[in-house]
């Protein structure tokens, strides 16, 4: 009886199941953006791709890959860091970072789903595209790797990792009296936290982490190869595409994790477990990746400026001095300034969470810019046939659909953390019985 009374009084931990007015506002705003995006998508599906700003390359002077494909590359890039951080935490037993592991895993799953959605909205006939991929995808094409390894294998592996990692907490949450207890019992699937189960989970998570890391490097390199192997497209063909994809994926993903960690820390009011040392660790990782990417950018810039063939020169002029220059230099500034700030913080060993969050947001804006520059200019300015230079501007439909995809991602994360604890439960939180 005493147990029951205590259990009735004890609320679900970490703000789970509590919908504050701020959260309701966030939910309503996200639903509105999502609804408008669905309306825009319905316009695209009913009127055809002419509703977008995309046009055929060359003959129609446009780009057939635009904002949607930019976002595919961006979201799949974001997914990279989440599971990498989670896997590294497990393999090297980085206990300090354990509190952010679940957020990182969730970020990967959500980003991969958003990436898949961004591909689907880019298809004029989505159903036909999906069926044909399952029926005819060919391993010689990098798309096969993107589809089979990134969307299918990598997403499934991340879901398994997230699911198994959450069983312990699901079992504890099931002991709280709540409307979600059936959901927690289902997730826990009979988990009782016995030494045998703990040992098995430790072993499984280690091997899963080991299997996921090479999988994701291959998967992200394959995505780079989608562009890097196209010989007839100046600006895309190059050996640096795959490694640069992986590094920029790390930059955008770590930036996202920093932002998400700051949000979780604020929402669950736990500055102790997600302390400054967690942000310092993430900041150092972001700084190293940023400098590697800045090096890649410098090499790319020098190569573009040094005795380039005619079509490449046309492309590099557009990028550096022409119609794309504001995106190019804007992205450079948004990457270099955070790199300098992070280096300063690392040297002085004084980490400011607000500055780190601003850096995380800045590098993500830069990552979208850089992905756009990879996808679009080579189509408008990189044709080897004697076509006029093309143009591409996304239509309102594309902006609305992309905003809706972001809103859906925010909703998925927001709803998940209202149903499941964002941080691993402490012993006190996991104990319900008196």
């Amino acid at each position, binding site marked *: 009886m005493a147990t029951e009374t205590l259990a009735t009084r004890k609320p679900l931990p970490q703000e789970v199941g509590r919908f504050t007015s701020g959260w309701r506002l966030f939910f309503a705003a996200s639903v509105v953006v999502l609804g408008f995006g669905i309306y825009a998508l319905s316009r695209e599906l009913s009127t055809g791709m002419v509703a977008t700003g995309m046009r055929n390359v060359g003959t129609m002077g446009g780009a057939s890959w635009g904002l949607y494909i930019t976002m595919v590359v961006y979201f799949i890039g974001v997914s990279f860091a989440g599971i990498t951080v989670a896997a590294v935490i497990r393999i090297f037993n980085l206990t300090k970072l354990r509190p952010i592991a679940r957020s990182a895993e969730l970020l990967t799953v959500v980003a991969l789903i958003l990436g898949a959605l961004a591909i689907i909205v880019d298809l004029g006939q989505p159903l036909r595209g999906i069926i044909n*991929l*399952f*029926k*005819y*995808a*060919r*391993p*010689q094409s990098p798309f*096969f790797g993107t*589809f*089979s*390894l990134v969307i*299918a*294998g990598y997403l*499934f*592996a991340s879901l*398994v990792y997230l*699911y*198994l990692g959450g*069983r312990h907490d699901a079992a504890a949450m099931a002991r709280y009296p709540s409307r979600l207890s059936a959901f927690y019992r289902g997730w826990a*699937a*009979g988990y009782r936290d*016995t030494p*045998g*189960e703990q040992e*098995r*989970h430790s*072993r*499984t998570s280690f*091997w*899963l982490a080991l*299997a996921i890391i090479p999988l994701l490097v291959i998967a992200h390199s394959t995505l780079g190869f989608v562009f890097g192997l196209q010989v007839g497209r100046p600006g895309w063909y190059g050996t640096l595409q795959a490694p640069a994809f992986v590094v920029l994926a790390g930059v955008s993903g770590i930036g996202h994790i920093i932002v998400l960690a700051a949000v979780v820390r604020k929402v669950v009011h736990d500055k102790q477990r997600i302390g400054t040392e967690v942000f310092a660790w993430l900041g150092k990782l972001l700084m190293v990746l940023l400098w590697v990417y800045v090096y890649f950018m410098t090499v790319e810039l020098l190569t573009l400026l040094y005795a380039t063939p005619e079509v490449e020169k046309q492309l590099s002029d557009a990028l550096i001095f022409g119609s794309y220059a504001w995106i190019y230099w804007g992205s450079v500034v948004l990457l270099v300034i955070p790199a300098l700030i992070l280096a300063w913080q690392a040297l002085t060993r004084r980490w400011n969470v607000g500055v780190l969050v601003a850096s995380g947001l800045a590098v993500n804006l830069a990552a979208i810019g850089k992905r756009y520059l990879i996808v679009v200019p080579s189509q408008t300015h990189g044709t080897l046939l004697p076509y006029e230079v093309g143009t591409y501007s996304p239509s309102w439909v594309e902006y609305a659909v992309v905003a809706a995809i972001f809103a859906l991602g925010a909703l998925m994360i927001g709803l998940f953390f209202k149903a499941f604890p964002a941080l691993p439960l402490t012993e006190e939180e996991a104990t319900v019985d008196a």
Partner: protein
Amino acid sequence: MRRTITGAMIGLGLILMVIGYFGAAPWGADSVANSDPRFGFAPTVFVLGVIVSFSAALVYELLPDRPER
């Protein structure tokens, strides 16, 4: 038992991946015109192989312990 089933699932997944890969890749096809997968939905078989392999982790953890005598 647990290890046997897990190992078997990983093995089955790998076999499916190999079958799916070589079924989808027209290695040795005499022309580009014959470059369709050797059998329908071969890429799906590859994806299934990846999924079965990773499902082995689920089986390893979720399989209940043998009841104590």
